[in-house]
């Protein structure tokens, strides 16, 4: 298969890649860029573990070919921390006990991040809607909602 060139920004940094055209965005992030914070749980857009933010929207990186992200701006869980400081969402996830095994958490964080960008004052139902596609088998759902609410409040202060 002939390789193609693509470039996009990940967590504020330019990435120039020469890759097989059938690679998923998830593979490029994890295997080519070493950003293993983004997880894979199902490969068909059902679990949300692979969620990243692409041009401001939460997307399943297992369903997107890397080439489709050409020219895009992408944020992964590694990009939420700024200068060693946890993002308010991360801090509140930690403090509210929203994290158990942690495997679903990067996806949860990015779905919530996209939500708060679009809607800084979400109601509980908005939060539920935003993370309904993120499965947590340890099911700290209530704590996750509380953490998102607390982060929204902090942002709005």
């Amino acid at each position: 298969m002939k390789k193609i060139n693509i470039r996009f920004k990940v967590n504020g940094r330019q990435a120039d890649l020469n890759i097989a055209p059938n690679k998923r965005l998830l593979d490029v992030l994890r295997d080519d860029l070493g950003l293993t914070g983004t997880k894979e749980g199902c490969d068909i857009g059902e679990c949300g573990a692979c969620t990243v933010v692409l041009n401001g929207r939460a997307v399943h990186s297992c369903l997107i070919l890397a080439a489709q992200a050409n020219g895009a701006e992408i944020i992964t869980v590694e990009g939420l921390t700024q200068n060693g400081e946890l993002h308010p969402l991360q801090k509140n996830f930690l403090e509210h006990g929203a994290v158990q095994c942690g495997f679903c958490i990067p996806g949860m964080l990015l779905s919530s991040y996209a939500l708060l960008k679009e809607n800084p004052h979400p109601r509980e139902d908005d939060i539920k809607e935003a993370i309904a596609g993120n499965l947590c088998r340890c099911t700290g759902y209530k704590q996750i909602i509380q953490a998102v609410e607390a982060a929204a409040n902090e942002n709005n202060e």
Partner: protein
Amino acid sequence: MADSKIIKSKYFFEEDFTEELAEVSANKYADWNKKELKVVGKPVSRVDGYDKVSGSAVFTFDVILPNMAHAKTLRCPHPHAKIKRINTKKAEKIPGVLGILTYENAPKISWYGKSFLFDPHLRYEGDEVAFVAAENERIAEQALKLIEVDYEILPFVTDAAEAMKKDAPKLYDDGNIRGGKPSVYERGDIDKGFEEASAVAEQTYKTQVEIHNPTEPHCSVVNWDGDYLTIWDSTQGVFSVRDRVADVLKLPASRVRVIKKYMGGAFGAKLEAGKYTVMAALLARKIGRPVRIALDRREMNLSVGNRPDSVQKLKGGATKDGRLTALYQYSYGAAGAHPAGAGCSWALRTMYLCPNVKTEEYTVYINAGRARPFRAPGHVQGFFALEALIDELAEKIGMDPLEFRIKNHTDRDQVFDAPYTSKLLLDAYRVAAEAIGWKNRPQPAGSDAGPLKRGIGMSSQIWWGGGGPPAYATLKLNRDGSVRIIAGSQDIGTGTYTILAQVASEVLEIPMEKVEVLLGDTAVAPYCGSSGGSTTAPSVSPAVRDAAEQMKAKLLSGAAAHLNVSESQLVYRNGVIHTKGKNKKSMTIREIARKMGERVLVTTGKREANPDGYAINSFGVQFAEVEVDTETGKVSVKKIVAAYDIGRVLNPKTLENQIHGGIIQGLGFALFEERIIDRNTGKVLTTNLHDYKLPTVKDTPQIDIRIVSKGDSKISNTGVKGVGEPAMIPTPAAIGNAVYNAIGKRIKSLPITPDKVLTALQS
């Protein structure tokens, strides 16, 4: 100091008793007084939280080694077949394919008792046919497609009732019933018991197959360094994996190292070495490269475990004044294609006071993936049936179901005829009944006007959860006064890192930041059991306390030597040791450690023996409030009140996580999770997370938790009982009883789907 002895230790782990020799601590420490504790019992945030929210946590799934190859497994597409011929030539020729294993070239390693690592007799859809390593997963997948297999298709059976029939297709030469006969338990005389009864209820209940579906796939990364094998594994038991792999590969255990730092859940599905791990090790040695194998979601739904189904015929008798006189259970469940437990009678045997009990359980082989322990194996199924029967009996004799349960409360374990170390179930009933508003439930059942009908139901629960020895923990004190705990246990997402750090921080009176915990590494850690059976906190936390208390004694002795005083003149407070009285002299831990030069002080703590002559169990009750839409048949769970006697709570935050997690898994089991097999083709229809329905945030009810216990000092120096499994046991039963209370019709099989509700309403 550091007294120990070796005893025969016996306690319940998941499905059976484990019995082994264990070195135990004979040190006695003062009971912890909840009011005086500074760290234990406090809502401390997870010490591994930062790694997990920042994305830096490396799960087994994320382990990348230089030159690592990727593996994939070819699985049998038929429910029952034999390999007549297999040809891998074409697949081998694909550029990037590094090696292929099949039954023809792999060593014959015995597996599942009567089968092999690669067995040409394939007994279920998903059975392993070949294992390919390649430069990447995509190439490995292409290679799978080019492996040519001629299958002899055999007749199959995918239903336990069918499989028990004489003329059913056989999975093994000696038939489909495991052991050839039922497992029977009997006490008293049930015929006499039923004669004494003034009311008898008889009913058949069914539960479905549930799949664990942890978020992190089953995976291993293996690497050979000469004949030294290192395995990063997503496992609940690093020592169990090490021992199995060393055995089958005929390596000294000292040459196998198993590491697990973070894992994305398991719930019982990752308690033993996977075939995939051994296959990866064999192929890695052959190709001279590290190999990574990660199962995909389809494979996880086919091949690595499930909660077996159950058909339970129950009969119970009671006197007019509410005394149980007899309980009888006849049940069967499908182990899948290989030996596994499918029993569910412990509920009936242990929960209520009843002199006459008999249970007969059949475990049956069928052509489907093998069962594994799943969060409270047997109990979740057993309680669904028992608690429904109890409600039916209560109704027959016209007694309040809660009162009926209280009447049949027992302070002794009736199977082993021993008192419980503690049992505060009556308190739990009281607080939970009040919190849910038990008195205000619709009476009679189904009397709400509708179309949305509200109902309240309850279920008790009992689980083992006492843990026991052997469990060891090493504590190392660094020269700056910080410490590291090393234990061969594992944190499967439950918070083990955090609770163990809390225990050391409490004893040594040093901040949590000064305590590091290393778990899940067989090369450096002393032995602990697998993380299952709700035994981790009750088994390992006392070993850590023992290690920390020994360290404290060492520090006191060091300070006494340096200050030229006797130890009795010294007081230890907040990590500082001072002399009593006037002219106080003092030393910090750090100063003592520095005086000892570069040496690292080390202690090893051990879990003490469980008390002789007692039964140790966790107890609890859940009340569920549901709303049933009588037009659509949809059941919504509005609220669960959960009250527990689980000894001491080490950390209310991780406790809340455990209880929520158990309840929501129980809710999923009650309402929608189900593995479905097409009877005509023998194939599983629910192999992805679209068809297999897991609960989402939208299904989450309000959850109210009440803990009625403070600590059980009879068990151990930390007084902890397990909660992971108790959290799930009563949920489906409580929901089932609540649905009955709402609509006045009983749904006797799980999951309670809208079609079943509508059918029941029309009957």
